[in-house]
């Protein structure tokens, strides 16, 4: 009799329902829906945000997209020459500073912490410093830049200027860091800001390198540096690249430290073309500057919302840059995770 009831499909489903509670666990499915809706809210916010900035910037983006990219900062919102080229140039150079200062130092620091460091007090101090730096609010880095690199002092000169005088001479005749807010100050501040992020992500990537690779290399007589150069770094490269791309996009979107360091929010005289000479090219590093997020801040804070379309359009450009970088980083990580199982 049991067999005949179980043979009946409807009854079988009923028994299964009894056992697995499918469709009955109302609290459970309610809970699940509630959790899913948390992600849904985030998605909703993203969509509304995108729609808002695109619709605000549409009047600019649809009528004069090229002029907007090549234009300069102006005091009138209707000015035909209004645009973000100075912001793009400033952000580009900041990215260059981050690439050439924060990446080498950060990756080298990660190599030290993962490959060389022994369990001792010095290592603990370095490790603590990195972790705490990662949690320092970005404005505080701005204060560091303002104090050291903009206002300057005899300590700054002693630390940064005198030892590298030959270097600064490339940019300007007199020494930098003398009460002027400069592109160098902005770039260095952001390089310092992302350094802990680069270290932490690179260290994670290096930690994931299987130790069998190292042992194999040691076994055939490689030195530590050989192992790092030929085994560890190539294997960890995708992970390191992901981290560096994420920190680069962070540096490009960051505004607070640049405001403290004194990036220009109002008008900025257009710079002579790079083609007009090497002097003009190098001098820009020791001159006033602006950057994409700062251009946006300047326009949002103009009274009367007259600059709102321009701000919306600039945000669209910034978002495209940042999200493109992040997507490449995430895609890269997923590709290698999949490839390596």
């Amino acid at each position: 009799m049991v067999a005949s009831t179980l043979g009946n499909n409807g009854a079988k489903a009923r028994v299964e329902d009894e056992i697995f509670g499918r469709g009955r666990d109302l609290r459970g499915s309610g809970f699940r829906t509630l959790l899913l809706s948390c992600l849904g809210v985030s998605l909703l916010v993203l969509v509304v945000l995108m729609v808002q900035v695109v619709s605000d910037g549409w009047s600019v983006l649809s009528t004069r997209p090229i002029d907007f990219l090549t234009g300069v900062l102006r005091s009138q919102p209707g000015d035909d020459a209004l645009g973000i080229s100075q912001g793009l140039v400033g952000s580009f150079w900041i990215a260059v500073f981050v690439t050439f200062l924060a990446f080498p130092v950060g990756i080298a620091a990660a190599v030290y912490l993962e490959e060389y460091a022994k369990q001792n007090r010095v290592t603990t101090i370095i490790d603590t410093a990195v972790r705490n730096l990662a949690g320092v609010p970005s404005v505080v880095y701005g204060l560091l830049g303002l104090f050291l690199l903009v206002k300057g002092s005899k300590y700054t000169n002693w630390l940064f200027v005198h030892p590298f005088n030959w270097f600064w001479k490339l940019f300007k005749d007199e020494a930098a860091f003398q009460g002027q807010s400069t592109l160098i100050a902005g770039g260095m501040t952001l390089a310092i800001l992302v350094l802990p992020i680069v270290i932490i992500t690179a260290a994670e990537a290096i930690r994931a390198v299987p130790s069998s690779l190292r042992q194999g290399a040691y076994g055939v007589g490689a030195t530590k540096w050989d192992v790092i150069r030929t085994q560890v770094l190539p294997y960890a490269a995708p992970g390191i690249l992901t981290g560096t791309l994420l920190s680069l996009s962070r540096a490009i979107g960051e505004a607070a430290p640049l405001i403290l360091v004194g990036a220009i929010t109002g008008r900025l005289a257009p710079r002579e073309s790079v083609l007009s000479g090497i002097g003009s090219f190098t001098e820009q590093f020791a001159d006033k500057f602006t950057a994409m997020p700062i251009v946006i801040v300047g326009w949002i804070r103009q009274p009367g919302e007259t600059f709102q379309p321009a701000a919306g359009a600039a945000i669209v450009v910034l978002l495209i840059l940042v999200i493109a970088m992040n997507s490449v980083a995430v895609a890269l990580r997923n590709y290698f995770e999949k490839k390596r199982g």
Partner: protein
Amino acid sequence: MTDVGINAPELGRVSEISIETLAGPKKRARKEAAIRSFFFFAASVSVLISVLIVGSLMKETWTFVSEVDWSVTWGEIGWFPRQGLYDMPTLLVSSLIVTIVAMLVAGPLGLGSAIYLSEYASKRTRKFLKPILEVLAGVPSVVLGFFALVFISPQVIERIGRNGWLVIGALIIVVYLMLVLGWARQLVRREAGTELSTQVKRVMVLTLLVASALILIWWVNGVAGSSDPEAANFFTVKGSGQLAAAAVGVGILTIPLVASVSEDALASVPDELRQASAGLGARKMTTTVQVVLPAAVSGIVAAFIIGVSRAMGETMVVFLAGGAADQAEFTASPFDGGMTMTAAMASLATGTDSVVGEALTFQSLFFVGSVLFLITLALNIVASRFVNRVREKY
């Protein structure tokens, strides 16, 4: 590997292999040492930066502390740095409001997302859902500031309006008290089973009760004012841009951070616990709420503390959407314009090329920065204690 310095004929004569031969040429050892010290130098840069941050904060802060007339830093009408009034409670209370409201947004949403991704989502749905948080994490704070100013403030905060916020405030109080009471009942029930010491428990219960009392007073104040529609009170929405609008923006920015730290904590809970719970006949929800969450509680607390620290340090959203420029009167209402510590710093640095004004204005920037730095540092240290506790446990 050409400089290894051992060649085959030498290896053949066993008697000639010495420690020196195996160690290789001196040149190679020197090169390795040089490379090692280069890496060490790179690693010590972060220590140097920490020292420089503390040093640059200390110098101007010391000038401010030693020269300021302390009566202007406490109990004045507000933060008017260019008139020489540096009222710290104005900034501290605003920072507190923004942090609390931001965590009311980011806490539940971040934790909920983390639980879904870690416990419920299959590998495939995860692939579609995780990028939502990753994109959100990449949105620059100026963009959220713009969004808070042109959307959240007029379309959410002002549209819901005074009466709406009174009701929402009451709902928050009810939910909060239910959670506190439910949790306290559980604590009493399972006195022996939890790993927290009784002292910690007492402190936590006390904090929660004090917080409940404060929220109740805040709400009663709003209700009491409602008999006189003209009188401004906590729930009167003012101006364009309010602390609440900025705080919601900050909260949205904090969601991915809270989510990713909590997800790490949930992922570190061993699967054996889930399997044992399922084996005893518990449903998914029961397993999640009664087994996984308590096991990951240290990490989740850490996620919240890191979120608080991040929310307190967030600058641009409050600077753009907080509803105050350059100066602010004291306010304890989230529906009023106000200035947090971070926004005050950004305001001080804009306007002119450099910070000018009353004699100590420049120094006040560093003083506020030091206070902010110390608060976030303390929070981060506490958070890393909690994170380590999870690591040690599993």
